[in-house]
């Protein structure tokens, strides 16, 4: 056997292993996407002003779907060697951002506060820090949070349609806080920065809703001062 043939001989195993692993990741990611879609569909009910179900009920129903998500992340975590997280990262990056956004939406609907990375991690069943294993990347967390703002600015309007005049004020305040938070960050010229540039439209949309309500006396001054 020539030395060239020898050198090539065990490369195929390596390539096959990589191929198989990617296939397995893709299968898990597909399940995660399916879960994310279901949770998302469940949460869409918050925009239906005619529906009688309250936010609490909707969130409860959405939360119950996270056990399957956790299982899938657990499977993923066992598949990915710690030093190759970023090698395969692209496969689950997008769905993870979406699930983080869904966590953030649920937490906001319940507590009207920003979900922390720790909470997200525990909702998804992964680690908070890179050092501890399969984790949530900061970039993905921030992207998830940015996706929350556009959903909330839409909710602000639909809440008014449904006759809820105080929620928009609270949403506007919350998004304002997020805006201030992101302004502190010196983002690179990447996807995050681009998405952040869109945040100002959400801020403005909420301000417009508050303006519309204020000028018609639909919210009291005391509410705003809160």
């Amino acid at each position, binding site marked *: 056997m020539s030395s060239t043939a020898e050198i090539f001989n065990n490369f195929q195993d390596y390539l096959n292993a990589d191929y198989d692993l990617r296939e397995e990741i893709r299968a898990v990611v597909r399940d995660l*996407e399916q879960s994310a879609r279901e949770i998302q569909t469940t949460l*869409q009910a918050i925009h239906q002003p005619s529906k009688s179900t309250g936010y609490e009920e909707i969130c409860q129903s959405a939360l119950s779907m996270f056990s399957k998500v956790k299982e899938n992340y657990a499977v993923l975590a066992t598949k990915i060697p710690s030093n190759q997280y970023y090698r395969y990262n692209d496969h689950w990056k997008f769905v993870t951002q979406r699930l983080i956004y869904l966590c953030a939406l649920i937490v906001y609907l319940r507590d009207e506060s920003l979900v922390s990375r720790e909470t997200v991690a525990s909702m998804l069943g992964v680690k908070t820090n890179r050092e501890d294993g399969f984790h949530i990347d900061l970039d993905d967390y921030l992207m998830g949070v940015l996706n929350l703002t556009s959903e909330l600015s839409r909710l602000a*309007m639909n809440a008014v*349609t449904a006759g809820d005049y105080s929620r928009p004020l609270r949403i506007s305040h919350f998004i304002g806080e997020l805006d201030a938070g992101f302004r502190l960050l010196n983002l690179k010229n990447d996807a995050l920065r681009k998405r952040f540039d869109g945040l100002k439209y959400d801020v403005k949309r909420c301000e417009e809703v508050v303006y519309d309500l204020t000028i*018609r006396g639909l919210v009291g001054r005391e509410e705003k001062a809160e």
Partner: protein
Amino acid sequence: KTSMVNVDVNSAVIEAFQGFQVELDTRNDTYERIVKLSRDITIESKRLIFLLHRVTGSDDRDSILTDAAARMLELRTSKFLPLAKELKGQDPYQFLRAFSPGLQEYIESVTFYHYLADNQLASLDSIQTGLTFTLQDSNGNQNDLPKNLQVKNSAPRKLPDECIGNSDVPPSLKTLSDENKQDIQNRDVASEECLQGQNCTTDKAVAAETFDCESLQTVSVPVPPTEYMLGVADFTGELMKMAINSVGSGDLRTPRIVAEMMRTIHDAFASIGNIPRELRHKLRVLRQSLQKVETACYTMKVRGSEIPSHMLADVFSTAGTG
């Protein structure tokens, strides 16, 4: 010339390629004829959509819908029937790209029409039924040359009009019994044709009697579910336009109803996995359309909040008649 290969024109190779030439030219000619039919269908469907938008703010809603239904029937007879004949015996997917633009635009217009008429989505089945045609061989023989096939649409009473495009009759007539429903994915064109043929004759027993079923042939333009959904997605754009137009006409009820419908379709699309790429782009547009309608609903709510109490009854009574 140093070494020119003198090709024997009677060689087996040349002979084979002469056959290929015929095959390729025939296929390309068919493709081209289908493209032209598709262009015509696109144009007329677009015009139908414009016509249907005239319903908003018009007193003449019924006559517009009747007019539209007549033009759709004419479109099916004059363009879809020739298209169905072209596709007869072919693998329709081989020519899908040639007729897909026209088909989608047609689905958009039909769906819009049905929404205006019934306030619901036209089903794939009903659209497919409209594009399935029953032909009678003039000699009572099987003969697949198009020129010998006659559309019996012109023979009054013998074959009900619904056979050629029965999707515009009232919904009650179209409802398929449960046992006739087939899993969408399992149906193929052959069984579809058969099913439609039966429907035609069983729904109106009188018509069936005057007919020798053996001499009936059905041809159809198949509607792949993805094409159907692409048409439906485009239809939501027309819904949005109609909702905003309604506000302009002082109709404060329609936007809410439309928003409800659009939200249902939006959420349904959002919950679907394995979605084809062409559709994904249209869903972004759908999301934007929905937000436009939601914003209109919001504005109406906010403005409505200012109605002085002494006027409330007055306003509502007029709004109710819209």
